[in-house]
């Protein structure tokens, strides 16, 4: 199924713009992404990036935090103010992660250096899929949603229970829950769900969708042994039953 997903992407060659000042990383990244079927433009600074963005259309930006001149946070804020271009940030500092996750800056995902190139490619794919699946390209960003008293903040990657208590999830669980929230009342196949999440790709142990679903149930269902939010559909997959509304 992964190959199927890749073929969809390669058929219309997603264009990735890299902003990274270290030349060696810059070259190797370009090669890796090209090999994985992306069309790549590589820049080394904010000025070059602006020039490239004026020249061509881009589907996703891979942005390094530490850059000479204008830094990644500032660029991210600027891009976010004018477009909804998906942004994946590269960072070498744990604290940056806090800022990205706290999302003062509005990046969509992040990868910490030194990254696993397989993971980076998987995340880029997941981000592109998410953008397409949720139809936010050119539209508004994913806003916070509400279901059965729960609140989910996609940008901040935060989940609040009806009591206002913060519930922690893995990123795969969060992506899965978000996919359910964007398709309430629809029967979603395991293949579809796997396509929208990149869980399991990063680690040596590949987890099935079922494992992630049972973990989410453990965290959000009133009774995890008798789930009412995420119901299993025999031979079909899963259906998310609560009504979902914008917050």
């Amino acid at each position, binding site marked *: 199924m992964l190959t199927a997903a890749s073929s969809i992407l390669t058929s219309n060659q997603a264009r990735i713009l890299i902003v990274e000042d270290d030349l060696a990383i810059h070259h190797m990244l370009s090669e890796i992404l090209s090999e994985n079927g992306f069309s790549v433009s590589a820049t080394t600074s904010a000025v070059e990036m602006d020039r490239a963005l004026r020249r061509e259309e881009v589907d996703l930006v891979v942005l390094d935090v530490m850059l000479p001149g204008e830094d990644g946070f500032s660029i991210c804020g600027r891009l976010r103010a004018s477009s909804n271009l998906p942004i994946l940030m590269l960072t070498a*500092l744990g604290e940056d992660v806090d800022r990205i996750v706290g999302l003062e800056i509005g990046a969509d995902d992040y990868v910490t*250096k030194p990254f696993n190139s397989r993971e980076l490619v998987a995340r880029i794919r997941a981000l592109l899929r998410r953008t397409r699946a949720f139809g936010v390209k050119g539209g508004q960003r994913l806003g916070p949603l509400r279901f059965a008293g729960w609140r989910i903040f996609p940008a901040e990657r935060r989940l609040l229970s009806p009591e206002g*208590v913060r519930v*922690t999830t893995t990123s795969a669980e969060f992506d899965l829950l978000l996919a359910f929230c964007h398709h309430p009342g629809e029967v979603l196949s395991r293949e579809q769900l796997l396509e929208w999440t990149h*869980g399991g790709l990063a680690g040596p*142990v590949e987890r099935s969708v079922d494992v992630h679903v049972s*973990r989410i149930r453990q965290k959000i269902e009133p009774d995890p042994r008798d789930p009412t939010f995420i119901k299993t559909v025999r031979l079909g997959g899963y259906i998310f039953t609560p009504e979902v509304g914008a917050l």
Partner: protein
Amino acid sequence: MCVVRRLIPGTIAGQITGLVIIAVLLGVGLASGVLLYLIDQGQTGPNREILATVRAAHIAAIAKEAEAANSKEQLSLALRRSHSNSIEATLVPAAGLAARGESAPASPFIAAVEASLRDNWGLESLRRASQPGDGDSIFLKVGDHNALRFEISPHGGLHNLLFVQTICALAIITSSIVFLSIYAVRWIISPLSSIASAARSFGRAGGDETELSVDGPREIEQAAQALNDMRKRVRTLVNERTQMLVAISHDLRTPLTRLRLRVERLNDGPPRAAMLQDIVTINEMLGETLAYVRQGTQREEASLIDLPSLLETIAAQFADIGHEVSYTGPDRLAFAGRAHAIGRAVANVVENATKFGSRAVIVLRALDDGAVETEIFDDGPGIAPGLLDRVFEPFFKGDSARSIEGRTGFGLGLSIARDIADRHGGDIALVNREPHGLSVRMTFKPLQLTQVWGVTSAA
């Protein structure tokens, strides 16, 4: 010497108070000494002559009256009158009295009074030969069988009066000065205590980092100023070192990224996997260093967090990279704390557990007082009893040979975990399990909520 030292009070307040008391007593003593000396001056030289003449006139008048008295009543009246003056007259039998001999010399004052009586009034005073203690008495014969005994105080009533009143006044003055000075000394000394407590709390978790106020006596002001400067310098020094470590750790990640990308492009095989593992290890060590030097500088807000989901997530993350880690405990438990910090503390302990054992279990319990306890136990070899206390020391590494797959860090994980538990008002304890394995219990107390996340976002 030792005794003297033991008598000296230990505190500055005590010493200064002691000094004040001694000074006041010495001053008062000297002053009253001088006063008494001046009064005593009245008994010598020309003053003595005048006083002796006045006393002699008194005695003569009383003696005349007694002589003239016809009845006992008149006699006692005359004697009673004498009491009001500084002369006390009593009636004594005349037997045994004789003229003054050379054997019983009188004091100069008595001698002067006797001389005056003899010269001016023609009265010859007598002596009681055998009785001692009659030095200040003058006897005059009255009638045939009786005599009058005059006891003369050379100082007069003034002396006695002065003496009693002075003692009272001195006692009052001394005690009020002592009390005032104790109060004043405490007031002057009190900034010293705040300097001491500031020095003590400096660099401790939760210590008060505000500047010391620099008012008070000039010396104490200088000490406070010096301490403030020192704290500033130490902080700058530590911050510089921290910045340096952060910069090193951070900058190393760029070449490490290059290395990783290069290695990933090598042909698949055992050397490649080993190199990738080494890169992961180096990166983990850098991360550990960064977390250690940055601890305490990060200000994560406390919020209401669901602890079971946090611990389940940690268990899941370890399980997803191939370790057997599970969670047991309540399904839901809201707790006011710092999610990142608690997550890091638990993850550090679990990380250790997976290094030394094959499986780890995270247990969560709610305690009675609103606090929570996490217990992480593994089936590893445990820790030698002698090392149980030392594992919290930064950079302490136990027997690294026992770790599985040779995964070692800098040995900062447990000291970071302890610091986090400390900042949550809790603690951490290690206990070996039977037959083998280690149990790490951490307690966390709920924190004051600074804001309710989500309410502000939803608005």
